[in-house]
């Protein structure tokens, strides 16, 4: 199979380009984490991790880190000069109280109404685990998703209605996939930009519902 569209790093780079200077940002686990490595020169973002740190940085190359300085994915991280530690109630007051500007997270499915499913496939033998996802999407000002356009089996992840249990209804603003940047508009999914070498029909074919051409022929 030939690789078509953006790589994971290119998706993260594309998402990073849209984040205004000075934003307070929470990045989910996986491709969203890569966003921090691609912020354009001259912009400063402050990273929040829900386990109690504002001003998170990745560990310097080769550093071992410490077991009590970790991120929400329980990986060891660093704190920038000017960082702050706080307890969980304050951390989720930042989230639920609308103080964070942006949350970037992954998805299992997104519906054309902006419903997000990203915590459970609803499989009966799976142990349910939700973490902070429901709080983040209910409270952060702007919610964007970074995800492959389809599953490994080629099933669309952008759908009319989510079949997996919701994380929250009507919360997603924009989606960055390997094929396109897509807004959740009042009329449904609408393309904002296509990956190089990809045309609108190609993306529409791999989308599980109507995709409005927001770019033109």
């Amino acid at each position, binding site marked *: 199979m030939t690789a078509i569209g953006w790589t994971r790093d290119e998706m993260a780079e594309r998402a990073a380009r849209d984040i205004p200077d000075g934003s307070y940002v929470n990045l989910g686990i996986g491709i969203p984490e890569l966003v921090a490595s691609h912020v354009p020169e001259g912009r400063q973002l402050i990273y929040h991790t829900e386990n109690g740190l504002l001003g998170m940085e990745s560990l310097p190359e080769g550093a071992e880190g410490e077991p009590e300085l970790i991120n929400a994915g329980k990986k060891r991280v660093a704190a920038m000069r000017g960082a702050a530690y706080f307890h969980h109630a304050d951390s989720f007051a930042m989230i639920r109280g609308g103080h964070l500007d942006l949350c970037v997270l992954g998805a299992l499915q997104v519906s054309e109404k902006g419903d997000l499913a990203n915590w459970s496939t609803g499989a009966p033998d799976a*142990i349910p685990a939700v973490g902070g996802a429901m709080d983040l999407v209910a409270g952060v000002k702007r919610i964007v998703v970074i995800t492959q356009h389809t599953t490994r089996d080629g099933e669309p992840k952008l759908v009319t209605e989510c079949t997996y249990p919701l994380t929250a209804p009507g919360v997603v603003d924009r989606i960055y996939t390997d094929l396109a940047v897509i807004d959740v508009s009042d009329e449904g999914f609408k393309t904002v930009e296509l990956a190089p070498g990809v045309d609108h029909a190609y993306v529409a074919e791999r989308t599980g519902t109507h995709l409005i051409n927001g770019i033109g022929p």
Partner: protein
Amino acid sequence: MIDKRVASPAEAVADIPDGATVMIGGFGEAGSPIELIHALIDQGARNLTVVNNNTGSGEVGLAALIKAERVSRMICSYPRTANSTVFPELYGAGKVELDLVPQGTLAERIRAGGAGIPGFYTPTSVGTPLAEGKEHRDFDGREYVFERGLVADFTLIKCRTADPYGNLLFNKTARNFSPLMAMAGEVTIVQADEVVTAGGIDPECVVTPGIFVDRVVEVANPQQESDLVRRGVSYP
């Protein structure tokens, strides 16, 4: 003079009875009071309801308490973690119940419980399976779900520095749920890396004021969960 210091973890947890609700601080291994949990395993209390964000890893600390089948119910937000096999096995075998709570709702339920607030409305989980069967209410055109405050018979937490009055300082992201759980525990037990004399902590910097703390036990150089797991330790 008030002096909340006790001599050992064993003495600190001696009166936790069967059936108690126990809040245990920590987010993953950060802030996990391993020595207090191990003392609780030695002490033998059963049928516990435990509140923690996770379910431990390997076979030490919280995971060891669960493995010893002392926990009948877990209230947590994320029972899956790398190296976490004990809880999934017992949960699959029907030996432990799970009450899954979104992380921010869990934190606020504990805060509310400790602050004398019986319940509150939150937008978190509205429209999801976790809000089913709960009271909903509209405020200013947005829907919210009602959640109850949460209290515990005992709270076990770890901090970096304590004084004899129970004033506490924490270490980096090991703070997490601990200051909230200190408020919500009928009896709050703290293991501190170091205990300083009264006045040794600047009052402007106290994170948890001593009124929320009942017992302080000094555990210098506490064990770290990831280190024990890497060495293949299984407690007891």
